């Protein structure tokens, strides 16, 4: 078995990785599923607006000691990856920019992997996530990406998008929200415009953010969802979405959580805990129980 483990992680391995792999194999033999990836929601889970959830900075440090790969997953319509990164660093969290997987980032990933040349209807602030994809001429465009871009949601831009869709361009929605809160009151989100274009061109959009399975899978990469955990405060978008893909959802009772949320989805969340630090404790205890005897 030792040989098999060495082979599975390659000969050029270090002793730590070898031990980790050995633990996994033993746990699997014992019927336990080792955690190979943790996805963590941002707003409401790690922080609320400009305040970190108490204990969350330390909890993330503790989780890092387990060496389980981490990604931060969030639905965002205008904040670029760098902007999210700077906010988290400012709040004291330790992370790498590359660990952030936002719906905008997932959209650019999808465009690149399918070699698409988009018409981008996204906020100017979001454009930096799409470097190299922003300057296609109208006649070169073969996909439509819709985020939150009120200055582009007008008749002439929507007509352009519509004509691309009629030619078979895919419609990629960063978000399907009906409306959002603006300082001067409620305002239309991207959803109504996506819906309108779907009606016009008789097509269906691909929604790239949470709760779509494709979003969670793209954040996980090659990792089997059965070995992955999602920690979040939104019972439908975080927990329901992740569990639909076969991940385990840890619902935290902070942020947008409201009492009774845990019974709003079926199957219910794998774990319900009061906050992110507790979620980390449960995860680490699980790891210790299943593999700590080595």
């Amino acid at each position, binding site marked *: 078995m030792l040989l098999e483990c060495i082979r599975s992680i390659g000969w050029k391995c270090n002793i730590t990785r070898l031990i980790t792999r050995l633990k996994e194999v033993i746990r699997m033999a014992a019927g336990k599923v080792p955690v190979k990836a943790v996805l963590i929601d941002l707003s409401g889970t790690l922080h609320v607006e400009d305040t970190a959830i108490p204990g969350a900075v330390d909890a993330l440090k503790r989780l890092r000691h387990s060496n389980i790969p981490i990604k931060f997953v969030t639905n965002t319509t205008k904040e670029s990856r760098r902007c999210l990164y700077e906010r988290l660093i400012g709040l004291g969290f330790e992370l790498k920019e590359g660990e952030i997987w936002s719906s905008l980032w997932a959209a650019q990933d999808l465009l690149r992997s399918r070699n698409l040349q988009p018409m981008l209807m996204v906020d100017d602030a979001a454009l930096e996530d799409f470097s190299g994809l922003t300057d296609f001429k109208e006649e070169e465009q073969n996909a439509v990406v819709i985020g939150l871009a009120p200055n582009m949601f007008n*008749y002439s831009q929507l007509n352009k998008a519509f004509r691309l869709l009629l030619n078979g361009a895919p419609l990629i929605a960063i978000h399907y929200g009906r409306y959002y809160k603006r300082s001067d009151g409620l305002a239309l*989100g991207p959803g*109504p415009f996506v819906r309108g274009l779907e009606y016009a061109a008789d097509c269906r959009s691909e929604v790239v953010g949470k709760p779509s399975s494709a979003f969670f899978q793209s954040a996980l990469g090659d990792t089997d969802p059965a070995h992955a955990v999602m920690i979040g405060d939104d019972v439908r978008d975080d927990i329901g979405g992740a569990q639909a893909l076969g991940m385990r959802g840890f619902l935290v009772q902070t942020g947008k959580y409201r009492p009774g949320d845990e019974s709003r989805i079926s199957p219910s969340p794998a774990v319900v805990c009061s906050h992110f630090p507790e979620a980390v404790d449960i995860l680490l205890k699980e790891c210790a129980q299943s593999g700590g005897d080595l």
Partner: protein
Amino acid sequence: MSLLKNSRIGGVLLDITGVLKDGGIAIPGSVEAVRKLREAGLAVKLVTNETQITRRTMVSCLVNLGYSVQEQDIVPPCPALISLLQHENLRPHLLVHPNVLPEFEAIDQSNPNCVVLGDAGDNFTYENLNKAFRILINMEKPRLFSLGQGRYYSDSESLMLDVGVFTAALEYAADVKAEIIGKPQPEFFRSALRDMGVVPEEAVMVGDDVVSDVGGAQNCGLTGVLVRTGKYRPVDEKHPTVHPDAIVDDLAHAVNLILKSRK
């Protein structure tokens, strides 16, 4: 060309945009075709969801293209909507084309209790849609009226989004179901036929919109003919739910078919 199943034809409804004209140009053969229908003694009405211009402007536009029409020959959705607003004491917030605002002059628009969407064209700005949305979302029982529910139409060979797209957007945003005035609403076809004194079973509708013109008319008991002009696209011939009684190249061919089918 096989004949229409319907041989007792007393009246014909014609769509305007994409059948009589495309942009500012008469579709070749259509002027002559309308004249032939009239000469054969058939009642003719032009049923349109056009809400970018008034009936009067439409008449002068068609006359300039060589058609002989009068205002009473045209059935647009605005008059039907206005009588409904008056009947139900509704005060609309209007998101319509500026050209048709005069039609609503007599209607109280203060403190609105419903929203009316027409084909507002460039007036479909984010701020205007937002204004309509906020009125709907703040209503206890939101009411949204839509002048037609077209997806798109053809304007001088380029396809333009129609009112139905923005209606679908607001329906989703405010979680409301719009009430449609115009094609394909059955009452719209029926009222045009009543004016002509023709029953649906003896009427034919000719249009370039497979759903709104052809499907709408068929649902009402009329014979529906699709023309391959205007916004027509080949995929329309394989529509999953609407099967036109006939598909012809243009209005000239449709009229020949109607006259031949008639006993």
